[in-house]
């Protein structure tokens, strides 16, 4: 029932027990190795959740938490799933605290709705803008599915909702996105 049939940007990183043990011991080289193999996914998630301006700081926050809480990783799930959960919680917590702030547009200038003939690059930009306009909880699920290529089971584990709820949230996320895309001049 689970399959990943999307173009995933997910790194092929499998974090081994040895590396985790060295991070647990506070070994800086181990921490660097873990960071190097995983920071791309955390950073891109942050950019799309909170915008470029805050992404670097929040990425660092995630790793500070990760290294201080690594003894709490039970090993029942994949390490990356646990890391996604830490990252997503950090992003959502930030957005709740700063609920007046809108996620900054992720690329370039505002998109003109008068340009429905937008080319492919502009279409991507329109999607970035539309994503920044939908509810953060829906955005998180959309990103985990469409950008990270996660299965519903893994998404459910990351955002801590029942697996059966993932599909209905994705329906809402996709419909909200479509509405914003159309407002922005997207032509399907």
């Amino acid at each position, binding site marked *: *029932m*689970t*399959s990943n*049939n*999307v*173009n995933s*940007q997910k790194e092929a990183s499998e974090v081994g027990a040895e590396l985790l043990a060295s991070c647990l011991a*506070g070994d*800086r080289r181990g*921490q*660097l190795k873990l*960071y*190097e193999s995983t*920071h*791309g996914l955390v*950073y*891109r998630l942050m*950019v799309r959740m909170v915008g*470029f301006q805050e*992404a*670097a*700081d929040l*990425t*660092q926050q995630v*790793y*500070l938490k990760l*290294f*201080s809480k690594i003894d709490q990783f039970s090993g029942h799930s994949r390490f990356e799933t646990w890391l996604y959960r830490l990252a997503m919680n950090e992003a959502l917590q930030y957005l709740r605290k700063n609920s007046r702030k809108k996620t900054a547009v*992720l690329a370039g200038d505002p998109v003109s709705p008068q340009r429905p003939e937008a080319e*492919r690059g502009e*279409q*991507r930009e329109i*999607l*970035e803008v539309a994503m920044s306009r939908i509810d953060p909880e829906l955005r998180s699920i*959309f990103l985990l*599915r*469409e*950008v990270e290529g996660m*299965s*519903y089971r893994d998404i459910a584990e990351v955002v801590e909702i029942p697996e059966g709820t*993932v*599909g*209905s949230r*994705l*329906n809402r996320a*996709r419909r909200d*996105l*479509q509405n914003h*895309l159309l407002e922005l001049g997207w032509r*399907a």
Partner: protein
Amino acid sequence: MSCSEIQNLLSAYHDDELDSDIREKVAKHLVNCVSCVRELSLFEEVSQLAADLTPPVPPSNLWAELELRLQAETSQQEHVVSQSVAPARLRFLRKYSAFIVAATLLFAVGVGYLNQGDNSHNAHHHSSSVFSQYLTAFENDPDSAQQILLKNYTNDLVKSEQAARLLGYQPAIARDLPADYEIVASYVIKMPCCTCLQTVCRRKDGSQIVIFEHDDETTEWFDGQPKINATCGGEECCLVNLDERIAASWKRGKRHITVIGIRDITEINELIAWSDQSRNKI
């Protein structure tokens, strides 16, 4: 199944997350339902768009900044441990940290007060270039590094009473010196941004740190270096990672103190406590 039921399952169908029997029912419905097919094709278009997204590239100094924060946290933990298990050590620390509020480090990445604008682009570029050379050389050969500064800027080798006269104020370093350091030399240096007092100090083990006291913020000095803002010893502080060492800058009254060659957060806290004590003596 009705359109409404099908549309509830549409994402799961699109993502191939349905059991085969339900999937078949949805597929059967789609053969004859234009509106559901239309909705599904929009999902597919959005997925295609998302698949084309370019992943953002993390900034190259991200780890350097994170490492500073990790180092700061480790130092804090050691400080707490030392307080709980070693009363003698605690007394020693209190000697230096009477004014240190627990070094709660609240970081904000990037644009610190070292990183604000400058009036002259050329002077800015020159200063940041000279300072970059200075910092690079400092790690291995502080004496050579010093020559880079002296060669590039007008300077006077001074004693403390001369410094006050040239600067027009009584510098912190003139009143006393942090414990465990001795003065090697003091210079009044005229930089494009400001005229500052630079004091080269030696630790008991022979290694050097350099203390700058200056009117303006250090603006361009640390351009291109990984830096973070933090609260150290109760002061808003800008920390710059220099491979094996740290540079730190904080405001002291109307002026700023910048120290190059610090070993760790504990030493920063001690220096901030010193600058506070020195200020209280004014």
